[in-house]
């Protein structure tokens, strides 16, 4: 992503329309500073501060001064099974949401790209999960999953599929139940992005392939997917990261329960920081999460650059 930009910049050719590496002049600073100052103070600064905190014993409400403790927090984290549980649950959740969501969204996007009646209805409805506050999405699904007054159990009873259960508090069902909500909540956004990508693919290619007698699957493999791939990969990578870092939805649905079965890393870190006041420790968790995401992103980017070179 950024790599492409910096690459274009270093290749300074004469006659290029946008000469790169130029030093910003006074006018530029004047235009940039209003955004740059808040970004530095409230985003970059806290990020660096947060990394520094990870190497201290900072706690909330303590009178003794904060001390540097070196890598002690990280050493503790290494042995903290609860943290690694949350990390594992976070990965399960991120994969469990991102992959089915992508497949469903791809199916829906292909469907909506057809000349079907009522597809406007699907587009109109797609706004609902997308625009809703995550807190409301969580509340709404609590109503659906409610063991007595919820529509899910009542439907199962009506269909004769058993008495139903308390989905969000069952040890085995909690994570799948929460994952389903995650899929539901993010699907429209993914669908709409993929649909926009589909509409950018040249129509003529499709028709030519169809004339050559290519079936639907062949046409998808040979024409649709190659054109869609860059968008699909970007969206999937972002979705994965967002899901790994998510908080509000699961906080409202289960608060991480039952017995920590849905305690995502963010929920765990939040508890450590703002329930137990362990600022330094929670910051160390944040660092580990950033590192994990960076590794994933690097792998993804490397794969993408390679994929780009194949073309």
């Amino acid at each position: 992503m950024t790599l492409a930009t910096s690459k274009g910049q270093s290749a300074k050719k004469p006659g290029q329309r946008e000469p790169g590496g130029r030093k910003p002049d006074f006018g530029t600073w004047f235009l940039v500073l209003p955004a740059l100052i808040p970004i530095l103070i409230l985003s970059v600064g806290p990020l660096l501060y947060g990394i520094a905190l990870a190497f201290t014993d900072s706690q909330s409400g303590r009178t003794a001064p904060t001390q540097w403790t070196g890598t002690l927090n990280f050493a503790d984290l290494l042995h903290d099974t609860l943290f690694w549980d949350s990390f594992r649950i976070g990965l399960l959740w991120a994969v469990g949401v991102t992959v089915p969501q992508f497949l469903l969204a791809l199916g829906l996007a292909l469907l909506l790209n057809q000349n079907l009646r009522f597809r406007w209805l699907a587009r109109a409805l797609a706004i609902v999960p997308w625009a809703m506050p995550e807190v409301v999405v969580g509340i709404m699904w609590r109503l659906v999953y409610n063991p007595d007054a919820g529509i899910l159990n009542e439907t199962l009873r009506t269909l004769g599929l058993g008495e139903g259960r308390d989905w969000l508090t069952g040890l085995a069902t909690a994570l799948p139940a929460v994952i389903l909500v995650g899929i539901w909540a993010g699907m429209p956004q993914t669908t709409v992005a993929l649909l926009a990508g589909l509409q950018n693919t040249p129509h003529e290619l499709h028709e030519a392939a169809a004339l050559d007698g290519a079936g639907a699957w062949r046409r998808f493999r040979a024409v649709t997917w190659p054109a869609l791939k860059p968008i699909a990969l970007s969206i999937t990578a972002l979705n994965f990261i967002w899901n790994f870092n998510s908080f509000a939805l699961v906080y409202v649905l289960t608060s991480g329960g039952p017995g920590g079965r849905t305690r995502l890393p963010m929920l765990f870190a939040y508890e450590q920081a703002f329930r137990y006041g362990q600022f330094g420790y929670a910051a160390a968790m944040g660092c580990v999460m950033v590192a994990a995401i960076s590794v994933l992103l690097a792998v993804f980017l490397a794969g993408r650059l390679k994929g780009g070179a194949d073309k």
Partner: protein
Amino acid sequence: MRAGRPARAGQYLALLAYLVFLAFPFLWLISTAFKSPRELGDLHPTWIPQDPGLDNFRQAFEEQPLLEAAGNSLIAALSAALIAVVVATPMAFVMARHRSRLTTAATGWVVVSQAFPFVLVIIPLFLILKNLHLINSLPGLIMVYVVWSLPFALWMLVGYVRAVPRELEEAAAVDGAGRLRTLVSVTAPLLMPGLIATALFAFITAWNEFFFALVLLKSPEKQTLPVILTHFIGAEGAADLGPLAAAAFLATLPSLVIFAIIQKRITGGMLAGAVKS
């Protein structure tokens, strides 16, 4: 391509399945919101409220300070949206038109910031705002929201600026207009639809936000709507379903309306970002 009849039928069936999946939780929320307390206690709930009424809404307003919370949310979201756009527009202009080390770094930051786990940022922010005595205050939250919505605002705005023909600006420059003058009198008017879409998007983002508000706002009279909504869910997870549904439904309406208006533009912005990055 004309599909055969069975294929068409299958497509409509799939579409129907998607529609049901998308719609049913929302319909259930609405149904619950309008049910009478007696009906909510029924062990065999029905889709259509038998005795629909506004009791749940009345009760919701009595149980929690919903109006104050909505007011707080409105102030936070409006201020954040306005400040974010005012601050982001000149920067987006520079990022779109002039390539320099600074703008490359800014673009990188926009991308990277999408991957932040907020917990790493929230603890220092909490400490900084505490030292500035801005904990438990809307101005503190607004500052956080401005910065938090900047990456996507920049992302959208850069796209809109690029869409403005460069020749218009060059013509203005030939006529002797400075950069600021060009920005204000030539580019800005053409950017207006994009600016409004970006502001509305920043508004929804702040209106819906939960995590920062949960951490930074402590007293109920300062809290925003999403935080107040969670108060309906009791400590044991027990909840008064009717008022909960009613309040949740109300909290969604503003974003739904705004989103319906700007959805196309957001998609455009998102896609431009995805393709270019």
